[in-house]
């Protein structure tokens, strides 16, 4: 375990990488190579926070889309 942990620590994921993983997850698709790097780099806490932010953005963009449609119909 310690050996694995020391292997993982040096390359933790950047916010952009976490965002990418989460955005792909909303579609439900992930390439194998990207998965391999997720396994070693992503931490659960990062993914959960990014997931919640992603869900919020998703809801907001849907709300915006709906507002646009409703206002253009009026």
């Amino acid at each position, binding site marked *: *375990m310690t050996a*694995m942990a020391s292997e993982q620590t040096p390359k933790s994921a950047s916010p952009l990488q976490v965002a990418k*993983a989460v955005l*792909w*997850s*909303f*579609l*439900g*698709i*992930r390439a*194998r190579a*990207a*998965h391999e790097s*997720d*396994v070693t780099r992503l931490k*659960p806490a990062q993914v959960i926070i990014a*997931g919640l932010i*992603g*869900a919020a953005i*998703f*809801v907001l963009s*849907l*709300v915006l*889309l*709906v*507002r646009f*449609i*409703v206002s253009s119909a009026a």
Partner: protein
Amino acid sequence: MSAVIDSGHAHDEHRPDGGIMRWVTTTNHKDIGTLYLWFSFTMLLVGGMLALAIRAELFQPGLQFWHPEFFNQLTTMHGLIMVFGAIMPAFVGFANWQVPLMIGAPDMAFARLNNWSFWMLPVAATLLVGSFFVPGGATAAGWTIYAPLSTQMGPGMDLAIFALHIMGASSIMGSINIITTILNMRAPGMTLLRMPLFVWTWLITAYLLIAVMPVLAGAITMLLTDRHFGTSFFNAAGGGDPVMFQHIFWFFGHPEVYIMILPGFGIISQVIPAFSRKPLFGYSSMVYATASIAVLSFIVWAHHMFTVGMPTAGILFFMYATVLIAVPTGVKVFNWLTTMWRGSMSFETPMLFAVGFIFVFTMGGFTGLILAIMPIDIQLQDTYYVVAHFHYVLVAGSLFSLFAGFYFWVPKWTGRMYDEKLGKWHFWLSMIFFNVTFFPMHFLGLAGMPRRIPDYALQFAGFNEIASIGAFGFGLSQILFLWIALKVTVLGQGEKAGQRPWEGADTLEWTHLPSPAPYHSFDEQPVLG
């Protein structure tokens, strides 16, 4: 008690006590899994008998057997018993048996909590089923127990509320146990993204349960205080709002739909690769799709309420969000198909149920999409089309996945192979009669037959007759399943199963444990490469 006093000696020597006390006091995940599975199968038969009582009444137009009031009790209790008594505990039973075996853990994290969360269920079931015998009979407000119907009914409603509270508490405790086990007790080397899909789906489902069961508890507590303690949460005359009940209920109810299918997805994701002799296609996308479905499940609840009335913006939001869930779900279906693509497939009973699952569940998914489109939903709300839709998802989805899981893992549980010939009969009878029962309901719904009615207009007679015949065939087919299960588990009949009877199965329970899995397994953690 003696088990507690004697607990000084070495753990390896622990064998179960004989007799009934073994089952009452057990803290062993395999025993508790078995209890859950027998309990849920019993409830399936009880709920199934209620369904047959419904279908007997609907075989012909006109009132045949039951008063309309009792008919409403039948539909309500059928729904409540199947959802909370059969499907949910059955998946918990699978989790109890399989999660420790698949992650290389010796048992569940909280063994006594585990015992408690099971033994609350028979109490709840007794309250629920017993409510038929109180004055006024069982609750007849539909499984959704909408206010103000549910604020008006007799003591049967109170019993249902208490039963739901107890079942909810049991589910939450089970979920805490499953999450703790998965996060803390995995074998060294089994990182989160190397866990078998069944474990992943249960991890996500357990979080969903913890998030929404308290919401249901809140809703039914408000019902209870409205009924007996003078509050007016759902009473417009007192400043409350009955529509609020629907919002709260479905904020629980829609994630609940996924609670009942995600572990099924997990089982199918173990069975398909094993019988295709190929690794699962797109493992990580399966994990991500599951998580994505879980997140989306929280923002679609009001699609159950399009006809209740809401602002156009609200309708559009819930419609779009609902339709978008089809994307991750579709990814899963395509991943299963591509797993099978050019695989060296064989069709033993678990695989038959898995392939059958994909076929019929997808149909249920598509009718769900149709219902998500608001202008169509306005026409089809509360018709038999909806009944057809959710039975395609819950029977052909959840129940078929449970059957697939049973046939897949029973050699590991008992050390014996089930009767393959009878298993295949069970599959084909279930598959055919399922479709005979529920496919005509689409036509009934499109023609305008409302759900939850004991009598109907003459033009619906033909398809109702077919559906009733199918229902009795489906019900009788499950007696065959009971015989198959008794044969292999209780009577111990069947060929001896090797450690790994399915050559394509490669999770820890197949690669590291003999069949049957010993009473105490993984006392020493396996180490993964």
